[in-house]
């Protein structure tokens, strides 16, 4: 930002432009600008661009406090596996993100299982199987077109038998507007709990950083359908800033955990509020 001096009209307009173009909603942008004005009020001396970045970070700090960076598969008290269900709309990066999280687990020596819960899309099972092999995780599948809930039920029984420590359940991409598919997801959650009380221990909603305002609808509908415990933002290695995350964190009590920054199993990072704010500020 070529900003200097005070928080004048021109500076505010440039800030607005940067935030809006980063996919921060108009409402959240106004909220942030109002906070920045309040922070700057009474500061008489001219602001350097660095000062302005600090004021911005200060203004979004409360929103970004809604973060739970990282992934911690805490062993459940019953000694069973830590179960993570991964959900989200089509193409967001669920399957690839599971691969990345699986790698973290297997690298840490945890016995990991991947469950091919997408029984619908062409070659979805084969795709996850490749990742299971590459990351050294166990793999459970069912014939194409099988009932996903039934598969999860059986897979968790297997996981308990095998002494799996972490289980990732991949689900089919689904648009939140499709009520039958959302009902199916709620059913999968219920069935998982039937097999393992307390499971799924985490349900992570994967969001694509290139998504605009529709991400808010996705969070709203998915979290009304299943208990979403965390968010993951993928494809931040592109040019999209993922600013809608600020609007989401401001409205929902669901923390951001991890970010995807590429297509290989190593391309997973803990969410870093400072880096996120800097990238958005431009």
């Amino acid at each position, binding site marked *: 930002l070529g900003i200097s001096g005070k928080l004048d009209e021109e500076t505010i307009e440039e800030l607005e432009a940067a935030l809006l173009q980063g996919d921060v909603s108009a409402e959240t942008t106004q909220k942030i600008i109002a906070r920045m004005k309040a922070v700057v009020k009474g500061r008489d001396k001219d602001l350097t661009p660095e000062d302005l970045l600090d004021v911005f970070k200060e203004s979004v700090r409360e929103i970004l406090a809604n973060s739970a960076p990282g992934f911690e598969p805490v062993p459940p008290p019953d000694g069973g596996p830590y179960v993570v269900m991964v959900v989200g709309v089509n193409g967001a990066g669920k399957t690839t993100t599971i691969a990345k999280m699986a790698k973290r687990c297997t690298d840490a020596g945890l016995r990991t299982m991947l469950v091919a819960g997408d029984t619908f899309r062409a070659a979805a099972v084969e*795709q996850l199987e490749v*990742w299971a092999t590459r990351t050294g995780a166990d793999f459970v599948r069912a014939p194409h077109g099988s009932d996903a809930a039934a598969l999860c039920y059986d897979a968790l029984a297997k996981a308990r038998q095998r002494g799996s420590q972490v289980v990732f359940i991949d689900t089919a991409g689904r648009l*939140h507007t499709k009520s039958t598919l959302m009902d199916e997801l709620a059913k999968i959650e219920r069935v998982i709990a039937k097999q393992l009380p307390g499971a799924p221990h985490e349900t992570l909603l994967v969001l694509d950083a290139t998504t605009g305002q529709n991400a808010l609808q996705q969070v709203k509908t998915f979290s009304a359908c299943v208990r979403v415990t965390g968010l993951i933002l993928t494809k931040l290695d592109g*040019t999209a800033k993922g600013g809608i995350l600020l609007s989401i964190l401001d409205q929902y009590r669901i923390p951001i955990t991890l970010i995807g920054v590429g297509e290989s199993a190593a391309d997973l990072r803990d969410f870093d509020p400072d880096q996120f704010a800097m990238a958005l500020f431009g």
Partner: protein
Amino acid sequence: TLGDKFEGIFRKLRGQKSLSEDNIKEAMREVRMALLEADVNYLIVKEFVSRVRETAVGQEIVKGVDPAQQLFYIVHKELVRMMEGEAETDKPFAVQPAKENNIMLLGLQGAGKTTFCGKLARWIEKEGCKPLLVACDVYRPAAIEQLKQVGGGLGIPVFEMGTETPPLKIVQEARKWARENHRDTLLIDTAGRLHIDEVKMEELQGIRDTIKPDYVFLVADAMTGQDAVNSAKSFNDEIGIDGVCLTKLDGDARGGAALSIKAVTGKPVVFVGVGEKPDDLERFHPDRVAQRILG
């Protein structure tokens, strides 16, 4: 809706003789808000609002017409106009059966290219063409298998050479195979890639130079936000696109990316994806998407 907001605003302006800079100010703010909410790019929103203002200011309010309706009509008309194809400069999407057609698909990761490949094959088969799906995604796990299953489900042949052969070679061999096996249209599915990945963009240029496609589709996700202009511009500037398929329009994304992409590339949206099945493909209707964008 925007229409309702206009009604509210103009109720206060009863008895006005014409649309003025002053009396449409509030309405223009609402238009700006609606378009940003719909994911239309920030700079394009600016351009759009100033064009509407230009058209509207000074217009006499037609006798008996509600000024809100009149302004809404101007907004809607301008939105449709901006998204419509331009007959003089567009390359129409048309395939000629029994003539060699080469169609290349490109776009960001997860946009829906492989799925669109099957849908498009199904569509042109109805026009009498004999498509051959070409598996050029040698990177994504089971991508070739995915295309094979897509083709298999449609009874359409899929040409692949595994993941160890460079895509350049794959398209060359595909063309040979097509000629020998009487298939007239190559539908080339490529790997998703970032427009800022130089190596991947060069690969795409290589495929384009080798096969000289008759039509290049940018496949873009309808829920894409402000970033839509960045990727679309790069793909168009560096590779060249002829038309766009906007996918996942069966969701509730407003689809402002349609306007942004058209505005920044000048290329028309030709198709929209409205589901995951091979039949879920429709022609793009600018008036329908305009209504959706305005909300």
